[in-house]
């Protein structure tokens, strides 16, 4: 299990979501979830997205955030996110 120390947001983090037509998980909400109780799901394949982070915003929204690895150990890039459907947690 790698360390999850720092999170950096992709420039199009919110745009990726709006382009797909979803209700946007804002940068601030994902950052709040990052600093709360969170669950990491590992991608078993060699893809850019190495982990999904499941967490909750202060408002109680369950969200899933896609994490890309970086060259800096412990630092991750939040690529996009979505509201986790009820039952997925």
């Amino acid at each position, binding site marked *: 299990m790698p360390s999850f120390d720092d999170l950096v947001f*992709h*420039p199009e983090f919110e745009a990726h979501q709006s382009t797909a037509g979803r209700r946007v998980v804002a940068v601030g909400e994902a950052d709040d*979830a*990052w*600093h709360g109780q969170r669950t990491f799901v590992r991608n*078993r394949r060699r893809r850019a997205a190495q982990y999904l982070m*499941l967490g909750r915003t202060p408002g109680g929204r369950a969200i899933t955030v896609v994490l890309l690895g970086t060259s800096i150990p412990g630092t991750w890039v939040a690529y996009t996110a979505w509201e986790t459907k009820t039952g*997925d947690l």
Partner: protein
Amino acid sequence: MPEAREQTFDHLSPEERAVVGAPSDYDWAGATSAAGSARPNVTQFSIRVDRALLGQLQAIARARGVTVSDVARESLERYVQAGGRPAVAHILVSFKPDAGLLVQVEGGRAELAANRRTASVDERVPAGAPAPSTY
């Protein structure tokens, strides 16, 4: 936190799917939970700017002996402090013989010298002369 269950990715765009992959790619059963670290006072995010703007930021940073990040952060702080206005408020300094020296800031107006006796600049303008509207 409850155990994570496999999700559907139906709501992702094709571009997102190319990055994220398929639900079956993920080890849902092996999900691990942890509390996040204490929240620091900073959050990192990146922004996309065109080369011209980056060049201008670099020029300002070099001239001031600071980093591009310092310049960008300071400009963002000013933007926020200005209530989201995109630039420093436009300031007009004008003079009217009957009103004195006026400093007009976008969205506001301050009258520094309300009458001829207190407006020293007023003495240089003969009565009846056309008043310069803007200096």
